[in-house]
């Protein structure tokens, strides 16, 4: 199974949340600008780690599936 479609779907979902009209504009009036900086830094790092972790998990799942197929992991 190609893991990219699931990554793309996850990305589109994150982008939809991030770019939803009014969400961030609303924060701008209520929260101090400094908090908004923190929020952006947190979001950038979180997205990066979700993507990397997602890639690692997709590879691990493929390895597990292959090992079950070959009955315990023979040589490649």
């Amino acid at each position, binding site marked *: 199974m190609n893991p990219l479609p699931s990554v793309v779907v996850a990305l589109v979902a994150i982008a939809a949340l991030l770019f939803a009209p009014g969400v961030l504009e609303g924060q701008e009036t209520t929260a101090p600008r400094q908090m908004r*900086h923190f929020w*952006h830094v947190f979001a*950038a790092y979180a997205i990066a780690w979700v*993507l990397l972790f997602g890639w690692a998990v997709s590879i691990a799942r*493929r*390895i597990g599936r*292959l*090992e079950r197929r*070959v009955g315990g*992991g023979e040589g490649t």
Partner: protein
Amino acid sequence: MSLATVRWGALVLGVAGVALTLLFHWQVFFWVPTEASMGIVQRIFYIHLPAAWVGFLAFGIVAICSAVYLWLGEEKLDQAAVAAAEGGMIFTTIVLTSGPLWARLAWGTWWTWDPRLTLTLLLWFIYLGYFLVRSSTENPERGRRFAAVVGIVGALNIPLIHMSVVWFRSLHPPPIVARQDGPQLHPDMLTTVFTALGAWTLIFFSLFLLRYGVGRLEARIEQGVIPS
């Protein structure tokens, strides 16, 4: 090369990568000075730039493996190219998401059709096409060859992305690390960037190795070399 060997290699690289990652997160959040004009949000730089470099490295590997695959026809080179292309997509996606989060506060907009941003988005779409082309033909061998051509053509975009801020009027700042006259960055910031670059390069090669091992094993099962 056995899957066990691949796993050990990936584990060693992965552990080293995670250790460097912990170090660079400590540097980013507790050690490096805050940039005077942009403030806290500039700390996105420490993932944005290394992700771009690792993405370019990955697509460079795709191009080299694809070119040699077209020449020699060795299937394992195609499998290495696919593994690198997946990593390149992940790291370029990090660039394309961290950039707008930074730009919204630094430039006042999420996105602008600036040459560097546009070319980076084009790079992402070219390698998305790389995967689509592979599965678009009934003959897998033909799909692999088409994809190899896309993989080579896509990498030609990388020097354009690097030089776009020099050649064209751009909102994106010019290179501050990879410059002919040397990096123009506070030494602590430079150290943090290189730690992050080292961490993500190690993590990339760790996952690349695992993904390549999976590809090899899948191919050998399909060819009947290993009975399923």
